[in-house]
């Protein structure tokens, strides 16, 4: 890791608010997306990111610089988000479609329909499958890491991913058929 980045991390570890603010500037947006994918609501996701940065100086004592910092942060964010979800017991049954692509460049109509299809399908997945799919396919965690995050075995993670892919395929087929026959 570049020494400037290490210095920043070191300073944040010591409670330097300027360094903490700088880390926030670099990482908060990405962590917000990650938290949102796990929790499904922007408010909850923002709360999680808030908590992650408030607790970061103390948590950094456990950070071993040999690993990638952004990956380590992502893991903590996922853990914190999962904890929050378990605590709140507020299971989402739908996705905030309004938020999709809110600030991204305006996609084409086809792409937007595709994105809506995907998000609807994702929302219909059971939480256990959706978590594994998001963590593996979108966030890039390995099955070993997912196992640790979700307290399941890597084998169980693989099985859930297969089931998630299968379910997504069926759901997307159904959405696609709806689109072609209806509106």
């Amino acid at each position, binding site marked *: 890791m570049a020494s400037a980045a290490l210095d920043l991390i070191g300073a944040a570890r010591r409670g330097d608010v300027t360094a903490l*603010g700088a880390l926030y500037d670099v990482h908060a*947006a990405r962590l*917000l997306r990650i938290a949102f994918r796990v929790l499904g609501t922007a408010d909850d996701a923002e709360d999680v990111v808030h908590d992650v940065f408030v607790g970061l100086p103390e948590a950094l004592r*456990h950070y*071993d610089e040999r690993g990638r910092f*952004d990956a380590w942060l992502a893991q*903590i964010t996922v*853990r914190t988000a999962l904890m929050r979800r378990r605590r709140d017991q507020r299971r989402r049954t739908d996705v905030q479609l309004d938020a999709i*692509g809110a600030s991204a460049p305006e996609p084409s109509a086809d792409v937007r329909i595709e994105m809506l299809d995907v998000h609807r399908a994702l929302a219909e997945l059971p939480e256990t499958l959706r978590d594994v799919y998001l963590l593996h396919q979108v966030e890039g*965690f390995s099955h070993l890491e997912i196992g640790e995050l979700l307290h399941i075995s890597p084998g169980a993670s693989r099985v859930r991913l297969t089931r998630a892919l299968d379910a997504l395929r069926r759901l997307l087929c159904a959405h696609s058929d709806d689109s072609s026959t209806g509106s």
Partner: protein
Amino acid sequence: MSRLWPASHPTDEQLAELARTLAPYGDARTPDAVDASVREHVHACTACTTRLHALQRTAAAIATGTIAPAPSAGRRDAMLAARARGDRVILPTAADDATERVRTSSPWVRTAFGVAAAAAVLVASFVWRTPNEVIAGTTAGDLTLSTMYPRAGDTVHLTYRASPMLDRAPALRVRARLRSVHAESYEGGASSVVTLARLHRESDGRWHGRIVLPDSIVFAALAVEDTGGTDIDDHDGRTWELLRADGAGRVMFEALEQRIHDLMGRNWEVAHATSRQLADSFPDDIRTLSWERSFAIWSGLPADSIAARYDARARTFEQRHAAGRTRDPTTIGYLYWTSDRRSPRGRALREQLLRDAPTNSFAIQERLFEALDVLTQSRDTARALSTLDTLYAQAPADRRVQVADQALGLAVAYGDTASIRRWTTRTFGASADEERRAAGVFVQHPALRAEGLDRLRRVLRALERPDALPRRLSERADAFARRQALERRRAFAALGRGLAQSGAAAAALDTLTRAADGWDVSIMRAVASTAKTVGDTALEARMLARLALDPAASPAVRDSLRTRLRARPDAEQLQQDAERAFVDAILAEARPRMIARSAPLRALDGAVTDLRDLARNTVTVLVTVSRYCGPAVEVLPAVRSMAAALAAEGIRTHVLFEETTVSDSLRAFVTEHTLTIPTYVDPEQAGTRTLNSWGTPGFHILDGNGALVFDATSDPEVATRRALAVRRAARGAVSPRSAP
């Protein structure tokens, strides 16, 4: 049919893994193995390429089609404001790699231990426990609290991810050092250590429990341990903390104040930071000024920003409460205490304090000083003791100890039996060590000696019980047992001395022999002196040989003792016995841990070396210090002396500053303090983590074979003894009794 999902070959899982590995947006830092044949197949197969693209597009649709990429306006400031007002969140951090390695007992670790075991041959390693389980820096697990700031009656839920050290324990419990509003600084005082919760392992592999703090408790420091107290996870000395919040959820003044008390002796810098937090949270409370004043004085840096900040706040309070205008006793007391007491304003405030608030804590202290001043003029001890009786009756709880301490000294000097009895009762508590100290006072006074001896015998009987002394929060069972043994030896020494003074020579000798084990300089002196009184020259010589060997003895004392001993025919044997006793006693406290991870340290000239290389082949003392810690700055002259003394024994000393870069100001500091010892900074803070260093100064002993031998100490005298014991054992000059 969806455009995204045509049917075809390899399994979805295989393709998903390939898509993940290729993803530009995911971390994918530890890709699971993707079979090369799958890659080749996909490359050659149009259908599978389409499927792969479908998977990638699906994930990309989720990755890119999401909420706004930046958090809401104001969130960043809200986060920083939360930090500034002291909010903390304990995050579920991942286990570090080293921890995992220990748990899984990988070949890497086995090799490391194998090499270390082979290197740490013969002499030193059999003296202490084989370091087969604990790696330096990996003793802490993660305790997650549902809240750090419980209100009265709130249940705090605990989730503990055990360190490798504790994960195999059949049961775990949470102990706490509890502090009410009147608890004093340091670990003792009015604080108490109790078991607050039992933890139960649940199906998630974590340990769970819950606690409710008693209403009278405003601060608690927590640690997790096995039920035997064999291993303790105290967060590497930090402990986990609970601070009482008021009904509105705001951390209470008393909670923060007790945190400062609790941090005394553990981490001066964090205590100071807490005092600032206290002042920031309660800017209008004059009591905060006293803490800031204390830290400004303790820092020893008059020009420092600490003093400047204090001065500014003091002026604010001065302006707000012009002398004579306020009537609140607490405010008058603090205004006086934080004023320049020799100035006209200080004198006016003193007058007002004694007139308007004579039983205020600061007023009691002033009246105590006044009574002692009167005594030096009048020499009327009886009158002074009478005055102190009145003061004691009027004093608030936080001031009584000071009054009693002074009065007991006067009573003993005066020799009045009734006064000694009364003030001893007021000075000492009921625990076995306090009772022993009280009995020690009685033994010194002829009229109370018999009673004192009886009390000492009761103390010795009590010390046979495992619960005679309270076990400290971070004190492992073996260390606790050593402290109990030390307390017994102290009681035997006091009893022996009393018996000798009573003329019971035979009983005194028998008792003193039982006090003579271990290595406690004050006990050795007491035993030597009493042995001489009763005519046991052999025991006296044994003790003198030990005192001559102790590194704390001044050169003059050492030479004098050696000259006396040299005249004896058994001088050489005495010397060897003393050496063996020294090594045995000091190494009994060893808790060796292997340094298995890399920890780069940067010297002032920019050269980088690894912590393990620093101590290779040579016993080394590594001193961790901070420029911003008063006690650490204060100890630097002692570090210089220690380094010079140890160098003569072939032991190196290094200083590690808890800073990440070599700055000009650090160089200036080193020059100013004439530190010619090799000095380093910790660019990645891996050094302090490996050393489990929290709070400075910390003296760490490395044995030259890759092991950190003891828990850190803040006492250079203790460090010197430890380094010498390791050196002598490793050199083979001494064959410890515990050798096979």
